[in-house]
């Protein structure tokens, strides 16, 4: 049975795209081939997290997913995050904390952190660790990554206007 080329259409970083692919092509290979090289190959086996992208709001390993599994979905890569002039808050905090050493794990870490902050409101340490447990880093020992992550979460919570505490009486 020969493998033929086919197409896959999905929203990539907010834009509807159609790519030619093959049924056995992994999403990671398609992304890098199409110029989205911020997503990295670290193991190709779904164990290190360097290839993490967000699909329909969930952090996933692009190296394990087939490109065809992205059909009709929304995919976000590191390229959707900030710019030199306007980095995203998590990017700013990672840089400021000294958390970026070799940087190879960092795009994956940023995508997992973004999925965490978009999915969860009150983020305990336990929940944060569970969301981040699929991104390996060998350089930093995670200390400063953790500091940057907690700071980003705290800043976001501080920026969110306080809700009214009670429906009856008592203004805030």
């Amino acid at each position, binding site marked *: *049975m*020969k*493998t*033929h080329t*086919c197409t896959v259409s999905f929203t990539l970083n907010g834009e509807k795209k159609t790519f030619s692919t093959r*049924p*056995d092509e992994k999403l990671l290979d398609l992304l890098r081939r199409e110029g989205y090289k911020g997503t990295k190959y670290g193991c190709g*086996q*779904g*164990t290190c*997290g360097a290839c*993490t992208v967000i699909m329909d709001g*969930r*952090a*996933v*390993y692009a190296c*394990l*997913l*087939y490109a*065809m*599994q992205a*059909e009709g979905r929304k995919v976000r890569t590191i390229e959707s995050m900030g710019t030199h002039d306007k980095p995203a808050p998590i990017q700013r905090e990672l840089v400021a904390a000294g958390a970026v050493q070799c940087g190879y794990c960092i795009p994956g870490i940023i995508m*997992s952190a973004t999925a965490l902050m978009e999915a969860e409101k009150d983020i305990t340490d336990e929940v944060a660790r*569970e*969301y*981040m*447990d*699929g991104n390996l880093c060998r350089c930093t020992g995670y200390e400063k990554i953790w500091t940057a992550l907690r700071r980003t979460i705290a800043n976001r919570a501080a920026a969110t206007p306080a809700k009214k505490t009670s429906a009856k009486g008592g203004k805030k």
Partner: protein
Amino acid sequence: MKLCEFIRPESLAQARAALRKLGPKGLPLAGGTALHFMPGKTPVTAVDLTGLGLSYIRQKGAFFEIGAATPLADIQRHRGPRWAMHEICRRISTHQIRNVSTIGGNICRVFPWADLPVVLLAMNAKMVIYSGKLKEMGADEYFSSQPARLFRGGDLLAAVKIPVLKAHHGFGSVKAARNAAAFSMVTIAALLEVNDGRIAAARVAAGSAIPFPRRLPSVEAALTGKEPSAGVFRAAASLAGNDARWCGQEGMSAEYVANLAEVSIVDALERAAEFARGRTE
């Protein structure tokens, strides 16, 4: 496995028809994470199951029903009284895997390290299989041997039904692993019914450290009718070797793993008993 084609059926019936037609050249695909453990170049057509409405968690009477294509992350996040599935799910692999890997994918083809079969055996879950119509199969029968045997003809797993935990029932599980993401060295799950200070019923299952997940009848027999004390648990756990042929893991010996399993059985029973004690309705 090498994917040569991708088809997206729109109903269970269509999916089953496609798989029956493809035979060994067809591969049901939900999250697809298990494909990594099936190397080789056999050409297959992927039959995508994610568009069939099989991702849900609902309570229906005395059961929680989990659609077969429900990602583990959703099971991990679900909370509710008399629900205990989240505890084991949060300990399986990593976040990105849990977001994609489904309960169906974990139990339709059982790998030796699988945790979910152990839990489902202890909970006496029922598997809902679609073979043109839906029929239920209890966990004991379903896991009596490699479940993949049930799906060779194109049948599909549609859902898993987990009994709502009744009063006086407690569930406990232990997964001993080197790191948070590591495959289990031994997984134990226990469901106890404790009435009037005595164990009325016990279901204890083990996996990972043995070739295939199974219940431990010798352990269960040594618990039934006794009081839920540490001494009883230890005595029961020491009989586990009658049922299970423990294997060396991670470079550690089978003797060590047997010891680890027995300690884990006691820990799981303690948890189940604790859980049962707190649940009077």
